[in-house]
């Protein structure tokens, strides 16, 4: 435990907006090894993952607990990770070992590497051994290859609309699963499209402002690094429909690394992949798979555990690695 890790609670709030920017950066710096960030009553607290055992029940447990997994890329077999099935299994073991059992899982896309039936089968088979039996999916660009997502929707899109977008409620939290990997334009980034935007507006219209909102989609809904296409062209319009809500959490995948950002009422979070890491924005010639020494791989893969405590109206997001 580092000196820094012994005193993690952060209480600087110079702009009186509930966000301690210095502390937030510190939280981000831990992302590689996992961090718990809790925002309660506008005050951000962060804990390194190695201190999870010291965190009290009220922080670690909630009225609603779920897990986000992402980018399992079943079928990938290159040097960056020749065995993505075993790391997905390790993720399931990690989920089953959580102190508080999550009610369900979210998979934020790139389930498969090449949209092959056997790749989807394999993921579904492995996820069957997870304690939470329900999985809500959104597609990644690797899941809609060559067929505009027809197979994806047949397997995972029951009850969804359009390209596979959907919403549901759990314990008073409204979840919105979006598809931003279809009809991408030359030179552009992720794309939601007019039809989906209209659906979002309608979907949230009758919800009260105090309803906590969780949006999940594959490509980040904030501009992480436009040079690599790590953002969504029309996300501002989608987030505009969510302005009235006091608590909005956006969960994404695609970039194979954890990252967080707070902007007003919205907390953005990207999850690690269960398959292979990708370079930090701009740190490599391209965002291709990052080959790391074998003993470091599982430290860069992971799952995200999200807890919601009803009376606090805040969601705690915990990243943990497979290492």
């Amino acid at each position, binding site marked *: 435990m580092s000196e820094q890790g012994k005193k993690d609670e952060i209480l600087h709030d110079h702009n009186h907006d509930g966000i301690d920017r210095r502390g937030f950066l510190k939280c981000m710096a831990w992302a590689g090894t996992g961090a718990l960030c809790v925002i309660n009553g506008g005050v951000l607290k962060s804990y390194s993952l190695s201190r999870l055992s010291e965190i009290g029940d009220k922080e670690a447990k909630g009225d609603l607990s779920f897990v986000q997994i992402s980018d399992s890329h079943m079928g990938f077999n*290159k040097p*960056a990770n020749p065995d993505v099935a075993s790391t997905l299994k390790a993720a399931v073991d990690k989920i089953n070992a959580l102190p508080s059992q999550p009610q369900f899982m979210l998979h934020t896309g790139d389930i498969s590497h090449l949209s092959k039936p056997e790749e989807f089968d394999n993921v579904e088979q492995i996820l069957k051994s997870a304690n939470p039996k329900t999985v809500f999916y959104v597609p990644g660009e690797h899941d809609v290859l060559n067929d505009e997502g027809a197979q994806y929707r047949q397997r995972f899109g029951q009850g969804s609309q359009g390209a596979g977008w959907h919403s549901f409620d759990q314990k008073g939290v409204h979840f919105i699963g979006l598809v931003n990997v279809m009809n991408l334009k*030359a*030179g552009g980034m992720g794309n939601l499209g007019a039809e989906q935007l209209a659906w979002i507006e309608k979907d949230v219209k009758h919800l009260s402002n105090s309803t906590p909102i969780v949006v999940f989609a594959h490509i980040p809904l904030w501009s992480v690094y436009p040079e690599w*296409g790590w953002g969504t062209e029309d996300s501002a319009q989608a987030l505009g429909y969510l302005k009235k809500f006091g608590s909005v959490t956006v969960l994404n995948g695609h970039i194979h690394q954890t990252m967080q950002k707070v902007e007003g009422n919205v907390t953005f979070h990207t999850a690690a992949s269960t398959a292979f890491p990708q370079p930090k924005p701009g740190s490599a010639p391209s965002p*291709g*798979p990052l080959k790391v020494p074998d003993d470091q791989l599982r430290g860069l893969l992971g799952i995200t555990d999200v807890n919601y405590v009803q009376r606090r109206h805040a969601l705690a997001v915990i990243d943990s690695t497979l290492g």
Partner: protein
Amino acid sequence: MIRRVLYIASIAAMLVAILAGRQTTNAAVPAAAPAAGAEVKIDNFSFTPATLTVATGTQVTWTNRDDIPHTVVSDDKTIKSKALDTDETFTFTFTKPGTYSYFCSLHPKMKGTIVVQ
């Protein structure tokens, strides 16, 4: 880079062979025909060369050398490859002159142009 040098060297050697009037193994191709094929490599999430100029009738082959699948899709969607896994290729013969802009529909920041003369 080494591959490209070798590639240029092999074209040069072929031209020398043709100019020297020697028979190549592929006797079915008349010596006067335009270059039969041109190539675009996909490396590090980019098309190389980004702009390729070819004669009408040229067959262009894209080869994906990344660990991640890519596609070749013209901006107007009239040319559309399947997703190309590592080392897979896509071939298209350009029969009409014009400027063809294309991109990877999975990673749309990847763009390229084929100029057909």
